[in-house]
């Protein structure tokens, strides 16, 4: 009886994973196909990758996606962290209100945010293109940074900042040398979230861009209208980038902790 249910739960998990990963696997496999077919694998080749690299338009889109993700992450991390610190120091009513307001853009359907931003930029006569896309990305990434940094700031012991100032640190030194190092895990989580959000955004980018500025998602969307396996190659690269980001986000802290434990143990043995 017990055995049976275990088999079922195992099967269930396998099915779930197949459901998630088969589409990705298909994309990856066919990106190495030697022919144009999307149904028959005719042999291994890097043909689509070479074509991808030589395609000016695609390379421009890669540049846009990467640079926007980097800038948007940097700006929203700074903005979000400062906001989270400020919020933790403000009155309860203001704090709760800000926190709820902060959740609206996260819960809001992307399409609503997208149209809202589009109308905003039009009404302010800002020429659509790279800058509007960057501003939009900063706007939707910042709430994610706030949500991941804020709990860390809240759990921070007030007396740490007091101790730093007691030892002669100015408020700015206290921020840089004590507060930020204490909330680092939250900031890293925020960076990771902001980067992935920005890098794979389609809907918002599509509505706020113009003048031929396209990111990877937009170009992939446009390319799907013709069958073109270069998309597969491009998608594979995107998957690889996201995978690497996730690995960095999850494995590096684990390794770091382990190494720290080891070091402590070694010192204890030495003493």
């Amino acid at each position, binding site marked *: 009886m017990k055995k049976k249910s275990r088999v079922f739960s195992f099967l269930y998990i396998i099915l779930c994973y197949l459901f998630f990963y088969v589409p990705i696997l298909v994309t990856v496999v066919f990106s190495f196909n030697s022919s144009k077919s999307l149904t028959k694998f005719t042999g291994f080749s890097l043909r689509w990758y070479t074509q991808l690299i030589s395609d000016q338009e695609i390379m421009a889109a890669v540049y846009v996606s990467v640079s926007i993700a980097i800038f948007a992450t940097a700006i929203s991390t700074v903005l979000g962290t400062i906001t989270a610190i400020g919020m933790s120091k403000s009155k309860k009513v203001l704090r709760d209100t800000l926190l709820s307001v902060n959740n609206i853009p996260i819960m809001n359907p992307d399409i609503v945010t997208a149209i809202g931003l589009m109308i905003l930029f039009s009404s302010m006569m800002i020429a659509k293109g790279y800058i509007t896309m960057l501003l939009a990305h900063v706007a939707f990434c910042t709430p994610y940074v706030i949500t991941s940094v804020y709990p860390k700031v809240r759990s921070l012991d007030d007396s740490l900042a*007091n*101790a730093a*100032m007691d030892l002669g640190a100015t408020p700015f030194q206290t921020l840089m040398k004590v507060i930020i190092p204490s909330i680092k895990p939250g900031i890293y989580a925020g960076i990771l979230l902001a980067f992935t959000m920005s890098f794979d955004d389609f809907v918002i980018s599509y509505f706020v861009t113009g003048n031929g500025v396209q990111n990877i998602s937009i170009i992939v969307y446009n390319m799907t209208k013709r069958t073109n396996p270069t998309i597969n190659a491009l998608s594979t690269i995107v998957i690889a980038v996201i995978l690497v980001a996730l690995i960095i986000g999850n494995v590096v802290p684990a390794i770091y902790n382990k190494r720290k434990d080891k070091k402590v143990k070694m010192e204890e043995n030495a003493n």
Partner: protein
Amino acid sequence: MADMGNCIIELKGITKTFDDQQVLRGIDLNIYENEFLTLLGPSGCGKTTILRIIAGFIEADGGELLFNGIDISKVPPYKREVNTVFQKYALFPFLNVYDNVAFGLNIKKVDKTIVDQKVKKTLKLVGLEGFDKRDVTLLSGGQQQRVAIARALVNEPKVLLLDEPLGALDAKLRKEMQVELKKIQQEVGITFIFVTHDQEEALSMSDTVVVMNEGKIQQIGTPVDIYNEPENRFVANFIGESNIIGGNMIRDCLVRFDDVDFPCVDKGFKENEEIEVVLRPEDIDIVEPEKGQLVGEVTNVVFKGVHYEIMVETDKRQYKIHTTDIQEVGTKVGLCVDPDLIHVMYTMEY
């Protein structure tokens, strides 16, 4: 008593209210150079609040705070020449022991080799030699507390504020650190403002003890004064154990309680004024019943290590007596007190 120089910190009528609760009700206090001053009082009486006002983390609602005669109430904490050992340590969890201790010196951009010397020396002083690279979050409570002491001490401040710095130590280490701290204070010549719950610690370490209750100073004095001449019932009860008995002052040098007249040494009360008498348990002698000023029966005997605690019931009340001689429960005994061991105080108004 240490030789004390000028007044270094002066509190004048300091008041503080937190959400409608008056935490400090007019604190007047002078703290002298090289003085070891202890704030002693029950939990919640405002000890930490006084330290936080002196350190600059909070501002008093009223009153003046002078440092060497200059008002510093608007000076930010990082410009004040005081350092604090926090009640909850407040060590930087992301720095190791060495970097925690070096923090203050590094902020002041002190030369690295000097930092190294001072940090090593201070760690040795608090008994944490060789702990340099340890993660502070993995230390025991007592070790963390000593890191906190080292981190403040290494800056050689004029005034060191210590908020129950020995609270997490076991009895033996606590005694050692008491001696060590006292030695450091005398050698380096720093003013210590020390907070504790522990009256024994306060009496054994301090030049001056400040007894507080509910945001008010009850008495300021040397440990001997505080113990022998408590000014009111609260101080008498809080410092050591005592028998407190209501009575009347018949005239100078004669007090009546429990319907018996006792010769004493106190003067200057009004005739027949209502007063309270403090008798320390160790000041009451047990004698033969016929020789006693009071007579009673032994009802309870508890061994306390150095002495026995003996309860004697007279027809008026129970007396607590500390003596090294054992008594049988049920024995009739007489009680005697020397005139100079009777301490008369004004009744406290509530």
